[in-house]
């Protein structure tokens, strides 16, 4: 066979990006890859909005007396920052962008099981987002992203209902996405792709989908009850109406703690793919890493009470929740140890995706370990409600989930866009983000330990140095996030053309052209080897 006959097939001019043009071809598309890009643009927009609120907060906290806004406005800033970042960026980030793009490619299918539901989920997400943006413009909301009652249901005179409706609507988008992934992974795997041959990203996505489908309806009901009490004074959460405010917290955290795993589990899946590729090795203890994703999803549902240790929750319930919170650290630690063991004697290269993955491991480990401080009943009494908590969950959600997301974007960008980005700039951005992140959030651990409470617009003067460090770090972090935005955008037009498998990775998504054709594969692929068969591949080359 001559290469002359192969080349036109490999660099097929028709792909999902140029198959059709015009706004209708995007807004009415049923192609999972195009829907993934719709999500990519949307969540980037919300990331910029949520990030802008954070910038204003950090400027405010440069001065102990508050630099720019009144306390009421500050309350709205941190609330909207949390709501936008959690519900409209972090939760849909990896599942809706990378999951949508990759799940059918990785299972060897032509699309997700329900393409129309997939498009519907994006529209639902957008409607929910618009409701929330409306509330921001119409006066904002000041309850904190947790909407704790009875303040939210009885006393707050801000746009609680509009935001609640926005979050309520967006929840259905999450449910539909999770449902689509579960059915696709169960029913549409290519011949030979058994459960234990699946890439770990699919295991992580599957575990995440379980949480989305089983947990999100509880959030929807909780918000519905909140709106019912806020609008019609039906006594559910307010003690004055015969309700119980802790019931809200039980219901809210039943979803919202597992929601943290919706953010971090897919990032763990991404990191498994990257580590295996750039260490040229099969993930150490593949099966246990796969099962640990499911274990995190299941155990993650049993730990919510650790958010309520100091609220008046029964001390006996607190002991149980504390014990279970320690248990959930085990599967997380298994993953970290196994990634590290994979690196041992690996043939490691430090391309940009690998730098993000390394950053993820370090930052997630710090976030996870400081979580144990908060899972301990006694230390939580001191640390609860302080900046220690803020630092802890940012190490998980930003240091972990966002690093994983960026690592994934960099890893699969050649597949998504068909173009390569400048690796030097990407490595520089990863380093800037890592440094900026630590400079922003490490001082907050110290601030929290020293007793600085979260959610205050001003603070005692002795905390200023650490706060200024944190604000300076936020500036560095902001620059770090801006750089990829510029070079990825640049690469779409000027980047070198990417070959089908630029990293020499295993997995079905790399066996199709970059960018893939609309139907993904011209022939249904047949899987004949284990996941991450790098050793076999290297042996084949020799």
């Amino acid at each position: 066979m001559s290469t002359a006959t192969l080349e036109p097939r490999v660099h097929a001019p028709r792909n999902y990006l140029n198959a059709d043009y015009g706004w209708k071809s995007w807004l009415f598309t049923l192609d999972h890859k195009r829907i993934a890009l719709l999500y990519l643009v949307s969540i980037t927009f919300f990331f910029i909005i949520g990030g802008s609120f954070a910038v204003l907060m950090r400027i405010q906290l440069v001065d102990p007396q508050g630099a720019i806004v009144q306390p009421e406005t500050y309350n709205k800033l941190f609330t909207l920052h949390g709501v936008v970042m959690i519900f409209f960026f972090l939760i849909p980030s990896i599942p809706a962008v990378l999951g949508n793009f990759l799940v059918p490619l990785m299972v060897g299918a032509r699309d997700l099981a329900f393409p129309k539901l997939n498009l519907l989920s994006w529209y639902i997400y957008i409607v929910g987002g618009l409701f929330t943006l409306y509330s921001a413009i119409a006066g904002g909301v000041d309850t904190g992203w947790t909407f704790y009652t009875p303040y939210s249901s009885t006393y707050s005179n801000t746009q609680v209902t509009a935001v609640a409706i926005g979050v309520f609507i967006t929840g259905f988008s999450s449910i539909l996405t999770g449902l689509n992934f579960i059915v696709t992974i169960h029913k549409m795997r290519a011949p030979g792709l058994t459960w234990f041959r699946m890439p770990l990203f699919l295991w992580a996505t599957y575990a995440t989908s379980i949480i989305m489908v089983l947990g999100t309806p509880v959030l929807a009901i909780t918000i519905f009850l909140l709106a019912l009490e806020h609008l019609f004074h039906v006594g559910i959460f307010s003690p004055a109406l015969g309700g119980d405010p802790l019931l809200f917290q039980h219901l809210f955290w039943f979803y919202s703690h597992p929601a943290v795993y919706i953010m971090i589990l897919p990032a763990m899946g991404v990191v498994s793919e990257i580590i295996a590729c750039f260490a040229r090795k099969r993930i150490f203890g593949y099966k246990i890493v796969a099962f640990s994703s499911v274990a995190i999803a299941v155990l993650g549902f049993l730990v919510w009470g650790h958010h309520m240790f100091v609220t008046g929750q029964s001390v006996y319930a607190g002991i149980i929740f504390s014990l279970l919170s320690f248990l959930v650290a085990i599967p997380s630690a298994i993953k970290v140890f196994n990634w590290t063991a994979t690196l041992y004697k690996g043939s490691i290269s430090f391309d940009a995706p690998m730098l993000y993955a390394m950053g993820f491991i370090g930052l997630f480990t710090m976030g996870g370990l400081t979580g144990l401080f908060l899972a301990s009943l006694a230390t939580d009494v001191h640390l609860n409600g302080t900046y220690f908590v803020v630092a802890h969950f940012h190490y998980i959600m930003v240091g972990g989930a966002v690093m994983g997301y960026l690592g994934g974007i960099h890893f699969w960008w050649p597949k998504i866009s068909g173009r390569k980005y400048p690796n030097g700039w990407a490595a520089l951005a990863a380093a800037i983000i890592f440094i900026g992140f630590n400079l922003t959030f490490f001082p907050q651990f110290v601030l929290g330990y020293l007793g600085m409470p979260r959610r205050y617009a001003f603070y005692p003067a002795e905390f200023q140095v650490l706060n200024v460090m944190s604000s300076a770090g936020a500036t560095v972090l902001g620059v770090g996030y801006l750089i990829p935005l510029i070079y990825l955008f640049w690469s779409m037009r000027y980047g070198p053309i990417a070959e089908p498998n630029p990293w020499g990775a295993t997995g079905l998504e790399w066996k199709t052209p970059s960018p893939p054709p609309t139907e993904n594969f011209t022939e249904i692929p047949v899987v004949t080897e284990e996941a991450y068969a790098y050793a076999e591949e290297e042996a084949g080359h020799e």
Partner: protein
Amino acid sequence: MSHTIVPQKTYLYIFFSLIGLTLLTTGVAFIDLGPFNTVAALVIAFTKMMLVIMFFMNVRNSSGLIRIIIVAAFFWFALLIAFTMSDYRTRTWTPAPESWSSAPPTHP
């Protein structure tokens, strides 16, 4: 995979059963059953739920995998109730101040 064809009249029967049970819920609300008020409402609600799951969602004729998913959802709901009740049943309750029993506060 074979699909069982459910006759249209079955759906109509179930639909009217659900309407009937809704009317029953309303009717029972006007009768004071003492401690059984909640029990009666929950029994009717449970019956309606089972009709929807078994017939409208067609779980009656579905595969084992689908049934496992349904059972898992109930199991998750049971976890929510059980762990929440572990707090309620063992919490140290303090009586609410008398002033709280007056009219609900209005918006500031």
